[in-house]
């Protein structure tokens, strides 16, 4: 059957059967092209991804090497890659690199106060302040004293335990509870960090290696101050590596 070469003149119902020559051409020509395309894909994509990934992994691996093994126990002030710890604004896949609390030495003053307050009723036998009152009054007063002692210690512990500075793979977060009812939550993307400064002064800070870090950002909150954290030099190094990793991602155009 003679076939029109002009496809525009073909009626819709006209059967189209490809000629054997054409099929041979399409079969023979299509497979190499596909193979070539696949070859190109397999040849081009991995070099553009793998070195970048490995570059990022180098940064991350370095961070892990720096911080791993630094956490003594779960009540530590320096939690490296914690497994249990999390916070409410965390994304599902966001990895926590570091969680920092104030150095344990900053708790010494209230622990001493707590011990003194516990022992204070024993001094009443030497200084009879409550002897004027009957024994039942004295009992209530002493119980009340112990309750207040517990509350002071508990408040200080809560303040230490919940005031945390968190470094994740994407951002730094400072959670501060100033008193019983006021809270401050500061956050900055790691890519927004411009400058990091640390200060260490005084005998105790030098001996026990803790200090304050100031993070200047280009974000809405210009300065994030993290006070009295352990090992500030190491934290700065970690932040430097994180910034390096973030810059690498920016260069590759892989910003989350």
């Amino acid at each position, binding site marked *: 059957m003679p076939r029109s070469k002009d496809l525009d003149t073909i009626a819709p119902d006209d059967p189209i059967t490809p000629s054997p020559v054409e099929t041979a051409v399409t079969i023979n020509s299509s497979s190499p092209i596909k193979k070539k395309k696949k070859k190109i894909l397999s040849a081009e994509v991995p070099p553009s991804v793998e070195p970048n990934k490995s570059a990022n992994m180098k940064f991350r691996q370095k961070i892990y090497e720096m911080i791993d093994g630094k956490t003594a126990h*779960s*009540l530590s002030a320096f939690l490296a890659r*914690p497994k*249990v*710890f*999390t*916070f*409410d604004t965390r994304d599902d896949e966001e990895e926590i690199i570091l969680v920092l609390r104030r150095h344990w030495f900053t708790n010494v003053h209230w622990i001493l106060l707590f011990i003194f307050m516990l022992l204070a009723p024993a001094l009443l036998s030497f200084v009879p302040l409550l002897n*004027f*009152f*009957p024994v*039942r*009054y004295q*009992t*209530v*007063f002493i*119980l*009340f004293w112990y*309750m*207040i002692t*517990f*509350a002071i210690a*508990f*408040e200080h512990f*809560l303040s230490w*335990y*919940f005031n*945390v500075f968190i470094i994740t793979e994407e951002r730094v977060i400072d*959670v501060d*509870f100033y008193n*019983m*009812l006021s*809270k401050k*939550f500061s956050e900055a993307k790691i890519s927004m960090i411009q400058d990091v400064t640390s200060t260490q002064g005084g005998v105790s800070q030098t001996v026990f290696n803790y200090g304050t870090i100031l993070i200047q950002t280009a974000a809405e909150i210009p300065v994030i101050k993290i006070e009295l954290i352990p090992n500030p030099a190491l934290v700065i190094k970690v932040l430097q590596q994180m910034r390096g990793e973030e810059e690498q991602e920016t260069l590759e155009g892989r910003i989350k």
Partner: protein
Amino acid sequence: MISQLNTLMLLAGKIFAILGTIIYFIFSVVMVKQVAAMSQNVHDKFNGILIAFSYLHLAFSLLLILLAVILL
């Protein structure tokens, strides 16, 4: 005169103790709320223990009010 002063002192002590324990109870309620709010923001291993402590503290402060009312 001295016995009157004594009675007055005891009464003042009683009022101080009861008012003080009531205020303390309010403080311990706030503390429970505070621990709950903090635990919502930051989750860690010891949150459960801290919440338990805050409730225990609340129970003791309630007991203290009762003791102050009964004993004094």
